[in-house]
Protein backbone atom coordinates (compact mmCIF):
# COMPACT_ATOMS: atom_id res chain seq x y z
CA UNK A 1 0.00 0.00 0.00
CA UNK A 2 1.22 3.48 -0.81
CA UNK A 3 1.98 5.84 2.08
CA UNK A 4 -0.63 8.58 2.61
CA UNK A 5 -0.27 11.54 0.25
CA UNK A 6 -0.41 14.21 2.98
CA UNK A 7 1.40 13.59 6.26
CA UNK A 8 1.25 16.15 9.07
CA UNK A 9 3.05 15.31 12.30
CA UNK A 10 2.99 17.34 15.52
CA UNK A 11 2.28 20.63 13.75
CA UNK A 12 2.52 23.68 15.99
CA UNK A 13 1.75 27.28 15.04
CA UNK A 14 1.76 30.13 17.53
CA UNK A 15 1.28 33.86 17.27
CA UNK A 16 2.71 36.56 19.53
CA UNK A 17 5.12 35.95 22.38
CA UNK A 18 5.38 36.09 26.16
CA UNK A 19 2.04 36.76 27.87
CA UNK A 20 0.34 37.21 24.55
CA UNK A 21 1.45 33.90 23.09
CA UNK A 22 -1.46 32.15 21.37
CA UNK A 23 -1.01 28.53 20.41
CA UNK A 24 -3.30 28.50 17.38
CA UNK A 25 -2.30 24.95 16.44
CA UNK A 26 -0.92 22.95 19.32
CA UNK A 27 0.45 19.60 18.19
CA UNK A 28 -1.76 18.34 15.36
CA UNK A 29 -1.09 15.10 13.45
CA UNK A 30 -3.12 13.57 10.65
CA UNK A 31 -2.70 11.87 7.27
CA UNK A 32 -4.76 12.07 4.11
CA UNK A 33 -4.78 9.34 1.45
CA UNK A 34 -4.43 10.02 -2.25
CA UNK A 35 -7.88 10.81 -3.67
CA UNK A 36 -9.48 11.29 -0.27
CA UNK A 37 -11.55 14.25 0.96
CA UNK A 38 -10.59 15.00 4.55
CA UNK A 39 -12.71 17.41 6.58
CA UNK A 40 -11.57 19.78 9.31
CA UNK A 41 -14.41 20.97 11.53
CA UNK A 42 -14.48 23.33 14.47
CA UNK A 43 -15.60 26.73 15.66
CA UNK A 44 -13.88 30.00 14.86
CA UNK A 45 -10.40 30.25 16.28
CA UNK A 46 -9.92 26.49 16.64
CA UNK A 47 -6.95 26.52 14.26
CA UNK A 48 -8.46 24.80 11.22
CA UNK A 49 -7.65 27.58 8.74
CA UNK A 50 -4.20 28.03 10.30
CA UNK A 51 -3.39 24.42 9.36
CA UNK A 52 -4.32 25.13 5.74
CA UNK A 53 -2.23 28.29 5.71
CA UNK A 54 0.80 26.41 7.04
CA UNK A 55 0.33 23.59 4.51
CA UNK A 56 -0.04 25.99 1.59
CA UNK A 57 3.08 27.95 2.59
CA UNK A 58 1.17 31.16 3.36
CA UNK A 59 2.45 31.01 6.92
CA UNK A 60 6.12 29.94 7.14
CA UNK A 61 6.22 30.08 10.96
CA UNK A 62 5.45 26.59 12.15
CA UNK A 63 7.08 23.66 13.89
CA UNK A 64 6.67 19.97 13.25
CA UNK A 65 6.83 17.88 10.10
CA UNK A 66 4.67 18.16 7.02
CA UNK A 67 5.04 16.21 3.79
CA UNK A 68 3.01 15.98 0.60
CA UNK A 69 3.92 13.06 -1.67
CA UNK A 70 7.70 12.71 -1.74
CA UNK A 71 8.25 16.31 -0.72
CA UNK A 72 9.03 17.35 2.85
CA UNK A 73 7.79 20.87 3.38
CA UNK A 74 10.46 23.32 4.52
CA UNK A 75 9.96 26.52 6.45
CA UNK A 76 11.84 28.98 4.31
CA UNK A 77 11.32 27.94 0.75
CA UNK A 78 13.66 28.82 -2.09
CA UNK A 79 12.04 30.17 -5.21
CA UNK A 80 12.35 26.79 -6.90
CA UNK A 81 10.73 25.08 -3.91
CA UNK A 82 7.93 27.63 -3.79
CA UNK A 83 7.25 27.09 -7.48
CA UNK A 84 7.22 23.32 -7.05
CA UNK A 85 4.81 23.70 -4.11
CA UNK A 86 2.52 25.81 -6.26
CA UNK A 87 2.22 22.92 -8.68
CA UNK A 88 1.49 20.52 -5.86
CA UNK A 89 -0.96 22.43 -3.61
CA UNK A 90 -3.44 25.20 -4.27
CA UNK A 91 -5.95 26.89 -2.02
CA UNK A 92 -9.53 28.12 -2.52
CA UNK A 93 -10.75 30.71 -0.04
CA UNK A 94 -14.12 31.45 1.50
CA UNK A 95 -14.84 34.79 0.00
CA UNK A 96 -14.69 35.00 -3.77
CA UNK A 97 -15.23 38.76 -3.46
CA UNK A 98 -11.97 39.11 -1.58
CA UNK A 99 -9.80 36.55 -3.34
CA UNK A 100 -9.92 38.05 -6.85
CA UNK A 101 -8.24 41.33 -7.77
CA UNK A 102 -11.06 43.78 -8.56
CA UNK A 103 -9.16 45.47 -11.39
CA UNK A 104 -7.94 42.30 -13.09
CA UNK A 105 -9.98 40.51 -15.71
CA UNK A 106 -10.52 36.77 -15.35
CA UNK A 107 -7.86 36.31 -18.02
CA UNK A 108 -5.28 38.39 -16.11
CA UNK A 109 -6.04 36.46 -12.92
CA UNK A 110 -5.58 33.13 -14.69
CA UNK A 111 -2.56 34.35 -16.65
CA UNK A 112 -0.52 35.17 -13.55
CA UNK A 113 0.26 31.59 -12.46
CA UNK A 114 0.95 30.64 -16.10
CA UNK A 115 3.56 33.37 -16.56
CA UNK A 116 5.15 32.81 -13.12
CA UNK A 117 5.62 29.16 -13.99
CA UNK A 118 6.65 29.92 -17.57
CA UNK A 119 4.06 27.64 -19.10
CA UNK A 120 3.28 27.63 -22.83
CA UNK A 121 -0.06 27.62 -24.67
CA UNK A 122 -1.59 30.07 -22.19
CA UNK A 123 -4.71 30.78 -24.26
CA UNK A 124 -5.51 27.10 -24.61
CA UNK A 125 -4.92 26.46 -20.90
CA UNK A 126 -7.22 29.32 -19.86
CA UNK A 127 -9.95 28.19 -22.20
CA UNK A 128 -9.70 24.60 -21.00
CA UNK A 129 -9.81 25.46 -17.30
CA UNK A 130 -12.78 27.82 -17.74
CA UNK A 131 -14.73 25.10 -19.51
CA UNK A 132 -13.73 22.67 -16.77
CA UNK A 133 -15.30 24.89 -14.08
CA UNK A 134 -18.44 25.33 -16.16
CA UNK A 135 -17.85 28.83 -17.53
CA UNK A 136 -17.91 29.83 -21.18
CA UNK A 137 -14.46 30.93 -22.51
CA UNK A 138 -16.02 34.37 -23.13
CA UNK A 139 -15.83 34.94 -19.36
CA UNK A 140 -12.09 35.58 -19.68
CA UNK A 141 -12.75 39.23 -20.56
CA UNK A 142 -14.92 39.93 -17.52
CA UNK A 143 -14.00 41.73 -14.32
CA UNK A 144 -14.96 40.26 -10.91
CA UNK A 145 -17.76 42.81 -10.42
CA UNK A 146 -19.38 41.51 -13.62
CA UNK A 147 -19.68 38.03 -12.12
CA UNK A 148 -22.15 36.54 -9.64
CA UNK A 149 -20.86 35.04 -6.37
CA UNK A 150 -21.02 31.53 -7.77
CA UNK A 151 -19.22 32.53 -10.98
CA UNK A 152 -16.51 34.24 -8.94
CA UNK A 153 -15.97 31.10 -6.89
CA UNK A 154 -15.75 29.15 -10.16
CA UNK A 155 -13.00 31.53 -11.32
CA UNK A 156 -11.18 31.08 -7.99
CA UNK A 157 -11.38 27.30 -8.48
CA UNK A 158 -10.17 27.68 -12.08
CA UNK A 159 -7.21 29.67 -10.85
CA UNK A 160 -6.39 26.95 -8.32
CA UNK A 161 -6.66 24.28 -11.03
CA UNK A 162 -4.67 25.95 -13.78
CA UNK A 163 -1.31 24.57 -12.56
CA UNK A 164 -2.80 21.05 -12.33
CA UNK A 165 -2.04 20.58 -8.62
CA UNK A 166 -2.54 17.27 -6.81
CA UNK A 167 -4.03 18.77 -3.66
CA UNK A 168 -6.68 21.46 -3.17
CA UNK A 169 -7.04 23.11 0.24
CA UNK A 170 -10.63 24.36 0.49
CA UNK A 171 -11.26 26.92 3.25
CA UNK A 172 -15.04 27.25 3.68
CA UNK A 173 -15.44 27.34 -0.12
CA UNK A 174 -19.24 27.71 -0.07
CA UNK A 175 -20.13 29.46 3.17
CA UNK A 176 -20.42 32.88 1.50
CA UNK A 177 -22.80 31.48 -1.14
CA UNK A 178 -26.56 30.93 -1.25
CA UNK A 179 -27.64 27.31 -0.81
CA UNK A 180 -28.66 26.84 -4.44
CA UNK A 181 -25.24 28.12 -5.59
CA UNK A 182 -23.53 26.06 -2.90
CA UNK A 183 -25.03 22.91 -4.44
CA UNK A 184 -23.57 23.84 -7.84
CA UNK A 185 -20.09 24.50 -6.44
CA UNK A 186 -20.06 21.31 -4.33
CA UNK A 187 -21.11 19.30 -7.40
CA UNK A 188 -18.35 20.98 -9.40
CA UNK A 189 -15.73 20.18 -6.74
CA UNK A 190 -16.84 16.51 -6.65
CA UNK A 191 -16.72 16.28 -10.43
CA UNK A 192 -13.25 17.87 -10.69
CA UNK A 193 -11.87 15.60 -8.00
CA UNK A 194 -13.07 12.56 -9.90
CA UNK A 195 -11.70 13.72 -13.26
CA UNK A 196 -8.36 15.05 -12.03
CA UNK A 197 -7.87 12.48 -9.25
CA UNK A 198 -7.38 15.26 -6.71
CA UNK A 199 -7.05 15.11 -2.94
CA UNK A 200 -8.93 17.69 -0.85
CA UNK A 201 -8.71 19.03 2.66
CA UNK A 202 -12.01 20.78 3.30
CA UNK A 203 -12.47 23.21 6.16
CA UNK A 204 -16.11 23.88 7.02
CA UNK A 205 -18.36 24.53 9.97
CA UNK A 206 -21.32 22.97 8.15
CA UNK A 207 -21.77 19.28 8.89
CA UNK A 208 -24.09 18.93 5.90
CA UNK A 209 -21.26 20.01 3.58
CA UNK A 210 -18.69 17.87 5.41
CA UNK A 211 -20.86 14.75 5.34
CA UNK A 212 -21.65 15.30 1.67
CA UNK A 213 -18.05 15.77 0.54
CA UNK A 214 -15.75 13.90 2.93
CA UNK A 215 -14.91 10.34 3.82
CA UNK A 216 -13.19 11.21 7.11
CA UNK A 217 -13.03 14.28 9.32
CA UNK A 218 -11.19 15.66 12.30
CA UNK A 219 -12.96 17.73 14.94
CA UNK A 220 -10.82 20.52 16.35
CA UNK A 221 -11.05 22.67 19.45
CA UNK A 222 -8.47 25.10 20.90
CA UNK A 223 -5.74 24.13 18.45
CA UNK A 224 -5.89 20.36 18.92
CA UNK A 225 -7.72 17.54 17.18
CA UNK A 226 -10.26 16.11 19.61
CA UNK A 227 -11.07 13.14 17.46
CA UNK A 228 -10.92 11.74 13.97
CA UNK A 229 -13.87 9.79 12.66
CA UNK A 230 -15.43 8.54 9.45
CA UNK A 231 -18.53 10.20 8.04
CA UNK A 232 -20.68 7.03 8.51
CA UNK A 233 -19.66 7.04 12.19
CA UNK A 234 -20.55 10.72 12.46
CA UNK A 235 -23.97 10.27 10.90
CA UNK A 236 -24.69 7.19 13.04
CA UNK A 237 -23.79 9.18 16.16
CA UNK A 238 -20.72 7.09 16.97
CA UNK A 239 -18.54 9.93 18.20
CA UNK A 240 -16.22 9.73 21.18
CA UNK A 241 -16.45 13.34 22.32
CA UNK A 242 -19.43 15.18 23.74
CA UNK A 243 -18.19 18.32 21.95
CA UNK A 244 -18.47 16.60 18.55
CA UNK A 245 -22.02 15.59 19.39
CA UNK A 246 -22.86 19.10 20.55
CA UNK A 247 -21.53 20.63 17.31
CA UNK A 248 -23.26 18.05 15.17
CA UNK A 249 -26.63 18.44 16.84
CA UNK A 250 -26.37 22.22 16.95
CA UNK A 251 -25.94 22.25 13.17
CA UNK A 252 -29.33 20.55 12.72
CA UNK A 253 -31.31 23.55 13.96
CA UNK A 254 -32.90 24.97 17.06
CA UNK A 255 -35.74 23.08 18.73
CA UNK A 256 -34.24 19.66 19.27
CA UNK A 257 -31.49 20.95 21.51
CA UNK A 258 -33.92 23.15 23.38
CA UNK A 259 -36.12 20.20 24.26
CA UNK A 260 -33.10 18.22 25.37
CA UNK A 261 -31.96 21.00 27.63
CA UNK A 262 -35.47 21.49 28.98
CA UNK A 263 -35.81 17.81 29.82
CA UNK A 264 -32.30 17.58 31.25
Amino acid at each position, binding site marked *: MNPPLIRVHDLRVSFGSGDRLTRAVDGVSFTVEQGEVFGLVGESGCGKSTILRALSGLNPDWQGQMAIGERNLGHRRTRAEALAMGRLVQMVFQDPYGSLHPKHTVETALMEPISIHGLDQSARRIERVLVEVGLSPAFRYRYPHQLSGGQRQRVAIARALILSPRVLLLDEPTSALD*VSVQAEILNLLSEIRRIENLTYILVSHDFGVI*AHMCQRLAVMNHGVILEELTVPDLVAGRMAHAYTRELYEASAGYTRRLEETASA
Partner: protein
Amino acid sequence: MAEPPILDVKGLSVSFPGPQGVVRAVRNMGFALGREKLGIVGESGSGKSMTGRAILKLTPPSAVVEAERLRFRDIDLLAADERAMRNIRGDRIGMILQDPKYALNPVQTVGRQISEAFRIHRRAGGREARERTLAMLDAVRIRNPARVFDLYPHEVSGGMGQRIMIAMMLIPEPDLLIADEPTSALDVTVRLSVLRILDELVSARGLGLIFISHDLNLVATFCDRVLIMYAGRVVESLPAAELPRATHPYTRGLLESLPRPDRPRPVLPVLTRDPAWLDA
Protein backbone atom coordinates in the same frame (compact mmCIF):
# COMPACT_ATOMS: atom_id res chain seq x y z
CA MET B 1 -57.38 36.41 16.37
CA ALA B 2 -59.22 38.83 18.62
CA GLU B 3 -56.21 41.05 19.12
CA PRO B 4 -55.38 43.40 16.26
CA PRO B 5 -51.99 42.66 14.67
CA ILE B 6 -48.88 44.45 15.94
CA LEU B 7 -47.79 45.11 12.40
CA ASP B 8 -49.97 45.15 9.30
CA VAL B 9 -48.29 45.34 5.91
CA LYS B 10 -50.10 45.33 2.59
CA GLY B 11 -48.83 45.96 -0.92
CA LEU B 12 -45.35 47.03 0.18
CA SER B 13 -42.94 47.79 -2.65
CA VAL B 14 -39.39 49.11 -2.57
CA SER B 15 -37.89 50.13 -5.87
CA PHE B 16 -34.72 51.80 -7.03
CA PRO B 17 -34.99 53.94 -10.16
CA GLY B 18 -31.79 53.65 -12.18
CA PRO B 19 -30.39 54.44 -15.63
CA GLN B 20 -31.32 50.95 -16.86
CA GLY B 21 -34.87 51.09 -15.57
CA VAL B 22 -36.40 50.50 -12.17
CA VAL B 23 -35.03 47.73 -9.94
CA ARG B 24 -37.85 46.39 -7.83
CA ALA B 25 -36.30 45.00 -4.65
CA VAL B 26 -39.60 44.31 -2.88
CA ARG B 27 -42.82 43.75 -4.80
CA ASN B 28 -46.30 43.71 -3.34
CA MET B 29 -45.27 42.29 0.00
CA GLY B 30 -47.94 41.75 2.61
CA PHE B 31 -48.31 40.13 6.02
CA ALA B 32 -49.83 40.69 9.44
CA LEU B 33 -47.75 40.01 12.52
CA GLY B 34 -49.09 39.18 15.97
CA ARG B 35 -47.27 38.05 19.09
CA GLU B 36 -45.26 35.50 17.18
CA LYS B 37 -41.94 34.71 15.59
CA LEU B 38 -42.23 35.28 11.87
CA GLY B 39 -39.34 34.09 9.72
CA ILE B 40 -38.54 35.70 6.38
CA VAL B 41 -36.27 33.43 4.32
CA GLY B 42 -34.72 33.90 0.95
CA GLU B 43 -31.44 34.04 -0.90
CA SER B 44 -29.30 37.14 -1.25
CA GLY B 45 -31.15 39.83 -3.19
CA SER B 46 -34.58 38.37 -2.49
CA GLY B 47 -35.65 41.54 -0.68
CA LYS B 48 -35.85 40.16 2.86
CA SER B 49 -33.54 42.73 4.46
CA MET B 50 -35.07 45.58 2.46
CA THR B 51 -38.48 44.60 3.85
CA GLY B 52 -37.14 44.91 7.40
CA ARG B 53 -35.58 48.27 6.62
CA ALA B 54 -38.70 49.58 4.90
CA ILE B 55 -40.74 48.96 8.07
CA LEU B 56 -38.35 51.22 10.00
CA LYS B 57 -38.05 53.61 7.05
CA LEU B 58 -34.33 53.00 6.94
CA THR B 59 -34.10 52.40 3.20
CA PRO B 60 -31.40 54.26 1.25
CA PRO B 61 -32.38 57.78 0.05
CA SER B 62 -32.63 56.58 -3.58
CA ALA B 63 -35.28 53.99 -2.70
CA VAL B 64 -38.94 54.58 -3.45
CA VAL B 65 -41.14 52.93 -0.83
CA GLU B 66 -44.84 52.46 -1.57
CA ALA B 67 -47.52 50.57 0.30
CA GLU B 68 -51.27 50.30 0.53
CA ARG B 69 -50.92 49.86 4.26
CA LEU B 70 -48.02 50.00 6.70
CA ARG B 71 -49.47 50.12 10.17
CA PHE B 72 -47.70 49.51 13.44
CA ARG B 73 -50.21 49.30 16.30
CA ASP B 74 -52.20 52.53 15.90
CA ILE B 75 -49.49 54.35 13.97
CA ASP B 76 -49.57 54.79 10.21
CA LEU B 77 -45.88 54.44 9.39
CA LEU B 78 -46.48 55.68 5.85
CA ALA B 79 -47.60 59.05 7.17
CA ALA B 80 -44.99 59.26 9.95
CA ASP B 81 -42.31 61.87 9.39
CA GLU B 82 -38.65 61.48 10.31
CA ARG B 83 -39.21 63.01 13.74
CA ALA B 84 -42.00 60.56 14.52
CA MET B 85 -39.91 57.69 13.19
CA ARG B 86 -37.05 58.59 15.53
CA ASN B 87 -39.42 58.12 18.44
CA ILE B 88 -40.53 54.76 17.10
CA ARG B 89 -37.12 53.33 16.25
CA GLY B 90 -35.47 51.75 19.24
CA ASP B 91 -38.35 52.71 21.50
CA ARG B 92 -41.23 50.73 20.02
CA ILE B 93 -39.51 48.79 17.24
CA GLY B 94 -36.02 47.44 17.86
CA MET B 95 -33.61 46.09 15.29
CA ILE B 96 -30.82 43.57 15.74
CA LEU B 97 -28.26 43.32 12.96
CA GLN B 98 -25.92 40.54 11.95
CA ASP B 99 -22.65 41.67 13.43
CA PRO B 100 -22.42 43.31 16.88
CA LYS B 101 -18.86 44.42 16.02
CA TYR B 102 -20.32 47.02 13.67
CA ALA B 103 -23.55 47.76 15.49
CA LEU B 104 -22.05 48.72 18.85
CA ASN B 105 -20.21 51.98 19.42
CA PRO B 106 -16.54 51.00 19.84
CA VAL B 107 -15.58 53.96 22.05
CA GLN B 108 -18.37 53.67 24.63
CA THR B 109 -18.64 51.05 27.33
CA VAL B 110 -21.32 48.44 26.96
CA GLY B 111 -23.15 49.65 30.06
CA ARG B 112 -23.21 53.24 28.91
CA GLN B 113 -24.69 52.28 25.54
CA ILE B 114 -27.43 50.16 27.03
CA SER B 115 -28.35 52.66 29.75
CA GLU B 116 -28.37 55.45 27.16
CA ALA B 117 -31.00 53.48 25.22
CA PHE B 118 -33.07 53.37 28.38
CA ARG B 119 -32.54 56.97 29.43
CA ILE B 120 -33.39 58.43 26.05
CA HIS B 121 -36.58 56.47 25.59
CA ARG B 122 -37.73 56.48 29.21
CA ARG B 123 -36.32 59.83 30.38
CA ALA B 124 -34.93 58.08 33.46
CA GLY B 125 -32.12 59.14 35.74
CA GLY B 126 -28.63 57.68 35.80
CA ARG B 127 -29.04 55.42 38.79
CA GLU B 128 -32.30 53.87 37.60
CA ALA B 129 -30.83 53.36 34.13
CA ARG B 130 -27.82 51.61 35.61
CA GLU B 131 -29.97 49.31 37.69
CA ARG B 132 -32.20 48.48 34.75
CA THR B 133 -29.15 47.86 32.57
CA LEU B 134 -27.63 45.44 35.08
CA ALA B 135 -30.96 43.62 35.33
CA MET B 136 -31.19 43.46 31.53
CA LEU B 137 -27.63 42.10 31.22
CA ASP B 138 -28.62 39.48 33.73
CA ALA B 139 -31.74 38.66 31.69
CA VAL B 140 -29.60 37.94 28.62
CA ARG B 141 -27.56 35.60 30.87
CA ILE B 142 -24.41 37.60 31.20
CA ARG B 143 -22.81 36.10 34.27
CA ASN B 144 -21.12 39.10 35.81
CA PRO B 145 -23.21 42.13 34.73
CA ALA B 146 -21.29 44.62 36.88
CA ARG B 147 -17.99 43.67 35.21
CA VAL B 148 -19.41 43.57 31.67
CA PHE B 149 -21.07 46.97 32.24
CA ASP B 150 -17.64 48.63 32.16
CA LEU B 151 -16.21 46.70 29.20
CA TYR B 152 -15.75 48.11 25.71
CA PRO B 153 -17.27 46.22 22.75
CA HIS B 154 -13.86 44.94 21.57
CA GLU B 155 -13.38 43.26 24.95
CA VAL B 156 -16.38 40.94 24.57
CA SER B 157 -16.85 37.86 22.37
CA GLY B 158 -19.20 37.72 19.38
CA GLY B 159 -21.85 35.80 21.30
CA MET B 160 -21.73 38.18 24.23
CA GLY B 161 -21.79 41.14 21.83
CA GLN B 162 -24.99 39.84 20.29
CA ARG B 163 -26.53 39.32 23.75
CA ILE B 164 -25.58 42.92 24.57
CA MET B 165 -27.36 44.03 21.36
CA ILE B 166 -30.44 42.10 22.42
CA ALA B 167 -30.28 43.73 25.87
CA MET B 168 -29.99 47.17 24.32
CA MET B 169 -32.91 46.57 21.98
CA LEU B 170 -35.17 45.11 24.68
CA ILE B 171 -34.54 47.61 27.47
CA PRO B 172 -36.96 50.28 26.11
CA GLU B 173 -39.55 47.43 26.00
CA PRO B 174 -40.52 47.59 22.33
CA ASP B 175 -43.55 45.83 20.86
CA LEU B 176 -41.73 44.59 17.81
CA LEU B 177 -38.22 43.34 17.19
CA ILE B 178 -36.70 42.99 13.73
CA ALA B 179 -33.69 40.67 13.73
CA ASP B 180 -31.73 40.58 10.47
CA GLU B 181 -29.50 37.47 10.43
CA PRO B 182 -28.88 37.92 14.17
CA THR B 183 -26.85 34.73 14.58
CA SER B 184 -25.14 34.29 11.19
CA ALA B 185 -21.82 35.63 12.46
CA LEU B 186 -21.82 33.31 15.48
CA ASP B 187 -20.51 29.80 16.00
CA VAL B 188 -23.18 27.11 16.15
CA THR B 189 -22.99 26.42 19.88
CA VAL B 190 -23.09 30.14 20.72
CA ARG B 191 -25.89 30.60 18.18
CA LEU B 192 -28.13 28.23 20.14
CA SER B 193 -27.67 30.03 23.44
CA VAL B 194 -28.39 33.42 21.81
CA LEU B 195 -31.50 32.02 20.12
CA ARG B 196 -32.70 30.52 23.37
CA ILE B 197 -32.42 33.91 25.11
CA LEU B 198 -34.20 35.63 22.22
CA ASP B 199 -36.91 32.98 22.23
CA GLU B 200 -37.55 33.26 25.98
CA LEU B 201 -37.57 37.04 26.07
CA VAL B 202 -39.83 37.33 23.04
CA SER B 203 -42.30 34.86 24.53
CA ALA B 204 -42.14 36.24 28.07
CA ARG B 205 -42.66 39.85 26.96
CA GLY B 206 -45.20 39.08 24.26
CA LEU B 207 -43.29 40.76 21.46
CA GLY B 208 -43.65 40.29 17.77
CA LEU B 209 -40.42 39.12 16.15
CA ILE B 210 -39.46 39.33 12.49
CA PHE B 211 -36.55 36.95 12.01
CA ILE B 212 -34.77 37.49 8.70
CA SER B 213 -32.48 34.65 7.68
CA HIS B 214 -31.08 32.65 4.79
CA ASP B 215 -30.93 29.51 6.94
CA LEU B 216 -33.91 27.26 6.21
CA ASN B 217 -33.16 24.75 8.97
CA LEU B 218 -32.85 27.46 11.55
CA VAL B 219 -36.06 29.25 10.57
CA ALA B 220 -37.99 25.97 10.37
CA THR B 221 -36.99 25.07 13.92
CA PHE B 222 -37.02 28.52 15.54
CA CYS B 223 -39.97 30.45 14.11
CA ASP B 224 -43.73 29.98 14.26
CA ARG B 225 -44.47 30.99 10.69
CA VAL B 226 -42.32 31.45 7.59
CA LEU B 227 -42.53 33.63 4.49
CA ILE B 228 -40.33 32.52 1.59
CA MET B 229 -39.21 35.37 -0.63
CA TYR B 230 -38.01 35.15 -4.20
CA ALA B 231 -37.10 38.16 -6.36
CA GLY B 232 -38.86 40.58 -4.02
CA ARG B 233 -42.09 38.62 -3.63
CA VAL B 234 -43.48 36.21 -1.09
CA VAL B 235 -43.84 32.96 -3.03
CA GLU B 236 -45.01 30.86 -0.12
CA SER B 237 -46.24 31.37 3.42
CA LEU B 238 -46.67 28.50 5.86
CA PRO B 239 -46.30 27.40 9.48
CA ALA B 240 -42.59 26.83 10.21
CA ALA B 241 -43.12 23.22 11.19
CA GLU B 242 -44.64 22.61 7.74
CA LEU B 243 -41.58 23.90 5.89
CA PRO B 244 -40.29 20.41 5.02
CA ARG B 245 -43.63 19.88 3.23
CA ALA B 246 -43.53 23.15 1.29
CA THR B 247 -45.09 22.98 -2.16
CA HIS B 248 -43.72 25.91 -4.16
CA PRO B 249 -41.03 24.65 -6.58
CA TYR B 250 -38.60 27.35 -5.41
CA THR B 251 -38.92 26.38 -1.74
CA ARG B 252 -38.72 22.71 -2.72
CA GLY B 253 -35.62 23.40 -4.81
CA LEU B 254 -33.92 25.19 -1.93
CA LEU B 255 -34.70 22.37 0.49
CA GLU B 256 -33.50 19.75 -1.98
CA SER B 257 -30.21 21.52 -2.68
CA LEU B 258 -29.21 21.51 1.02
CA PRO B 259 -26.64 18.80 1.73
CA ARG B 260 -27.93 16.73 4.64
CA PRO B 261 -25.94 14.24 6.70
CA ASP B 262 -28.89 11.89 7.05
CA ARG B 263 -29.56 11.72 3.32
CA PRO B 264 -26.36 11.16 1.33
CA ARG B 265 -26.62 11.76 -2.41
CA PRO B 266 -23.81 11.51 -4.97
CA VAL B 267 -24.92 14.71 -6.72
CA LEU B 268 -26.92 17.53 -5.16
CA PRO B 269 -30.01 18.61 -7.10
CA VAL B 270 -29.41 22.06 -8.56
CA LEU B 271 -32.14 24.67 -8.58
CA THR B 272 -33.40 25.53 -12.05
CA ARG B 273 -35.06 28.90 -11.87
CA ASP B 274 -38.37 29.17 -13.62
CA PRO B 275 -39.12 32.69 -14.99
CA ALA B 276 -42.73 32.08 -13.99
CA TRP B 277 -41.72 32.32 -10.29
CA LEU B 278 -41.22 36.04 -10.80
CA ASP B 279 -44.97 36.53 -11.06
CA ALA B 280 -46.75 33.32 -10.17
